[in-house]
């Protein structure tokens, strides 16, 4: 994102911003170089150049499933956060400014504690003796505890909870910039409230929807701690498999190959997103 904005500035101004040099050097040394090393590691084995890491991935359908599951998890999380986030963000922009600020703070409060702690909280809630099960059993709705931990339900819920603020923030910043008079104009021209919302408001929120979806999906498929703590073997994601390869299987060539595969996929998504998204418009608000 920083790169995008600096490029567009440079494009309009035409001069290289010298004050960015320290940042660029920092990125080159601590981000660019390690990234190149990962690429290098993915094709170097004990005896020099090798494609064995990529072949291992292609030859084992179980690894494709791991990748597909990561994508499925990202999409499902995206759908849930989009529906919930859209409603919340819309409600926030219709509120009086003071209230909106207070409630926005509530959206941001989860960021104060670490992701690990928040994931652990889900263990407490969803456990067999957890708050949810004991409540359901107290009211006699179920007789035996439901097994939430180690299921898609637990992972998707926790992931959606974790990523919802990102979606709300993206949508809110765009919705907040939409001129309410446009809706009034639509109404005065005879549109029903529903129709004005659908044909005027929703299309204007498109940049927010795309940006939020992009962010949630990317973070969702890259998330490590949630599937690691709340999932079982069926919830093995690509980041989890990379960690297993590094720490347990000790096959760093394969781990690097998996990382490159994940990187290429996210890179492709980034290129696609750049085609459909106008980041300047997003961060500056809709005009």
């Amino acid at each position, binding site marked *: 994102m920083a790169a995008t904005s600096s490029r567009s500035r440079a494009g309009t101004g035409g001069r290289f911003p010298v004050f960015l040099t320290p940042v660029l050097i920092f990125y080159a040394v601590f981000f660019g170089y390690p990234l190149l090393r990962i690429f290098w590691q993915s094709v170097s084995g004990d005896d020099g150049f090798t494609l064995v890491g990529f072949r291992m991935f292609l030859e*084992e*359908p*179980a*690894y494709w*499933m*791991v990748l597909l*599951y990561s994508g499925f998890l990202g999409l499902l999380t995206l759908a849930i956060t989009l529906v919930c986030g859209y409603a919340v963000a819309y409600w926030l922009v219709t509120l009086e400014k003071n209230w909106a600020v207070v409630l926005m703070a509530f959206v941001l409060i989860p960021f104060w504690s670490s992701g690990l702690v928040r994931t652990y909280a889900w*263990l407490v809630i969803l*456990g*067999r*003796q957890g708050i949810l099960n004991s409540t359901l059993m107290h009211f006699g709705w179920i007789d035996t505890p439901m*097994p939430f*931990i*180690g299921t898609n339900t637990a992972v998707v819920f926790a992931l959606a909870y974790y990523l919802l603020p990102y979606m709300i923030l993206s949508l809110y910043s765009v919705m907040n910039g939409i001129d309410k008079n446009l809706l009034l104009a639509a109404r005065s021209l005879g549109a029903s409230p529903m129709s004005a919302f659908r044909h005027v408001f929703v299309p204007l929120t498109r940049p927010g929807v795309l940006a939020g979806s992009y962010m949630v999906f990317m973070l969702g498929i890259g998330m490590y701690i949630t599937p*690691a*703590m709340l999932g*079982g*073997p*069926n*919830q*093995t994601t690509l980041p*989890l*498999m990379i*960690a*297993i*390869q*590094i*720490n*347990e*299987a*000790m*096959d*760093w060539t*394969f781990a690097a190959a998996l990382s490159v595969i994940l990187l290429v996929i996210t890179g492709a998504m980034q290129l696609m997103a750049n085609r459909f998204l106008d980041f300047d418009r997003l961060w500056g608000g809709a005009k």
Partner: protein
Amino acid sequence: MSCKRLRENVLAAGAALTLAFSAAQAAAEDLTILSLGGSYQENQSQYWFKPYAQATGVNVKEAAGYNFAKLRVMIQSGNVEADLVDLSADSVNALAKDGLLEPIDWASIPESCKAGVPAEMRNPYAFPTIQWAMVMAYNTKTYPKGPKSWADFWDVKAFPGKRGSIGATRPPIEQAAMAVNPGSATLYPFDLGKAFDKLSELGSNIVYSDGYAQVVQFLADGEVDMIVIPNGRMVPLIAEGKPVAINWNQHLRFPNFFVIPKGAPHAKAAHKFLNWVCEPKTLALLARPTNYGPINTDAYQFIDKDVAPLLPGNPATAQLGRVADTGWLGEHRQDIARGWARLGAR
């Protein structure tokens, strides 16, 4: 200042610093020990590291919290910050194979230390200290007639209830293999595919966790009723009087070692520490607080009668299980990871 002058000055300052540093080294010997953290290291510190520092004046520094990946990078990069590392057998094999460990000078180890160490444990690159055992632990309220074998662990009809284990990092495949073929003496090599088949049989009756602490917590909370766990992890629960017990049948023992990483800055100091800590009486001190058993059998002379039966490798339970073949496990790491991925894809 000219470039040349600057360089000369810097070199001179560097030389002075080096001199000053080596002088300081000569005054008080340094030794940095990297261990596994938690209550295990607290006990090591209390009974081994601090007494050694007091007795010899060596400046012992401790570090904790490494994993194999970080350790390998540290040694490979040549920027070795530890002189002695507490390491599991499979990691010893992997690092020794890559030539990343200093050889242990067994000739300099006192005779009184060597007598009780079984011949197969005298690793040229690692000094054996304790052994832990992968055992079955269960809730004695749920199962008054406790499960006796891994076949029982898999028998969800006779023993209804959830099972717990750590997952991806170490799926209980040996236990699964022993549930099929109970003879632990003929355990290795076993068919990994069949072991994972057996594992998938348990389906949602088993809950996998990310770490042992969580597995133990699940048993303590009643979240699960039967677990696969290193025996030492059960010490706090048993001390608290929780209704839990250990089944020693078909347990697997895993030795732990001290190793000196290649390029350790104070390899000599590390050897001196080994020559001190290796005494059976010193090794025995860890038995009561950790319930990990000494590998040196002579240490049992210094262990109380009430503690000895709780230790892996003690004469009473040793025959019920066996030493794990960490060499075989090390060779099949990639197959185990693939098996785990396949288990999820079923």
